[in-house]
């Protein structure tokens, strides 16, 4: 039986007269890799901030991991992970300090922190870099570490906001290995990206245009529906000629 881990019904978010999210309706299934795409200005970031419990909707129903967005925002925050391109780890703390810090915020015990951080550093090959400041660690490693830290508390859902932006092509693929592993372990992954080949790795993809959801389906069906060879073509067909310049 398919279980929905995120439910969004008629979500509306307005900023003054401007409608950033215009009656969004969608569900995210447990364990899926859900791609959230859209042109700049389409309303993606607004929607993600609401799902992460960082902002209230203007109206509509939102449930994240069984918690209600209006009354249980703190429960939501405790049960999700988040990582973005722009902010992931603290540059002036070491690798180990960052792991310890985030694990602490997520409520892990000292023993859990000790075990998990050793496991994590071994897995990513970062043992030698344990006491290196993050600002001296190359970007690709930083992003892989940030992802691992975002799921260190085994959240039900992890939100990834353009996690592979500007990263070299080999590391990008290694990063997606980590995402696949997490999904296999049952973590639902909600990811946005500007790399259209990455859209192909998602179980389902939604494309936002002008505050609305213009399409939502598996990459295979989207390509058939829009007579496209790949997700890049699907995106261009949907997102071109919109009112947001």
């Amino acid at each position, binding site marked *: 039986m398919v279980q929905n881990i995120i439910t969004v019904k008629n979500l509306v978010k307005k900023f003054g007269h401007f409608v950033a999210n215009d009656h969004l309706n969608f569900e995210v299934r447990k364990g899926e890799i859900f791609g959230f795409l*859209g*042109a700049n200005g389409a309303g993606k970031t607004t929607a993600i901030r609401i799902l992460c419990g960082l902002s209230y909707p203007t109206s509509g129903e939102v449930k994240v991991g069984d918690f209600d967005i209006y009354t249980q925002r703190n429960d939501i925050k405790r049960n999700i992970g988040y990582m973005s391109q722009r902010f992931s780890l603290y540059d002036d703390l070491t690798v180990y300090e960052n792991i310890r810090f985030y694990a602490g915020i997520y409520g892990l015990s000292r023993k859990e922190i000790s075990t998990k951080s050793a496991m994590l550093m071994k897995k990513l090959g970062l043992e030698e870099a344990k006491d290196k400041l993050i600002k001296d660690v*190359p970007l*690709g490693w930083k992003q892989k570490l940030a992802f691992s830290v975002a799921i260190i508390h085994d959240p039900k859902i992890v939100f990834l906001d353009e996690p592979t932006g500007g990263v070299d*092509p080999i590391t990008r*693929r290694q990063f997606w*290995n980590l995402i696949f592993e997490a999904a296999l372990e049952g973590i639902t992954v909600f990811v946005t990206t*500007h790399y259209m080949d990455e859209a192909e790795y998602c179980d389902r993809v939604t494309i936002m245009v002008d505050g609305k959801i213009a399409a939502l389906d598996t990459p295979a069906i989207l390509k058939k529906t829009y007579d496209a060879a790949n997700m890049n073509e699907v995106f261009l067909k949907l997102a071109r000629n919109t009112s947001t*310049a």
Partner: protein
Amino acid sequence: MKALHDISFEIPKGELFGFIGPDGAGKTTLFRILATLVLPDKGMALVEGFDVVKDFKKIRKILGYMPGRFSLYMDLSVEENLSFYATIFGTTIKQNYDLIKDIYRQIEPFKTRRAGDLSGGMKQKLALCCALIHKPAVIFLDEPTTGVDAVSRVEFWEMLRRLKESNITIMVSTPYMDEASLCDRVALIQDGKIMKINKPEEIIVDYRFQLWAVRSGKSFDLLKDLHNYPGIHSVQVFGQSAHIAFEKSILSVEDLRKYLINTGHKDIEIEEIKPNIEDCFMELMVLDPTPQEKKIINSDSEGTML
């Protein structure tokens, strides 16, 4: 920490030249040196014949610069930003309007809107106009398409190609490998070193191996199974396909197909393909890795796609 190691190159007038490489490759440092904002430790550089250290004032008059992350004043309107830049360079919007007309027309309807309230794609167009308003001989665009959606990226490159008609020399940096094919020539840069400089078509011709795109009904297992195939040089995932490389004339497609059927795959497609710039870039990373790159490549342990 060395950001750039012995970089040498020449760009002829009117060329559209791209620096293709990930964050941390040294692109921004290089651009800042050439834009006379940072001093090199060794070596020399000339822009339009002027030395970046001795004649920096002369360079600054004829250079248009769009740094990574936006160069706009968020609390000024579109029109105010453009007017400000024109004034600093001792000109007016009217004087060189023809040069920016095609781009500016797209944002003109929003000319009284604050730059901070523009979408990413619009900010990019405005920043480009501001970099061009004084009719520079050369422009440097540092990652102008980073964080911008696929549609805006396509439009931006169309604008750049049209700019070439005005014989402006354009130097662009980008982490997006697919944008390399839109340049006259590119430098593939990683960890402060240039791995290759050439026309994109030539880089592709130079690729040493034979490449195939393989698909099957079970994409995830496909990568693992391909990894185990004898003689295979590399496996990289590209969306729904796996790109596999072999030394020339080694692979028998029929043998590979049999192998995949035996490992339980159906709907198998195997097609020989030309490499794209990303294939070439990854191969160069692996061929002659820097210590940093070695660590990246070797850090891939269990359950890998690579």
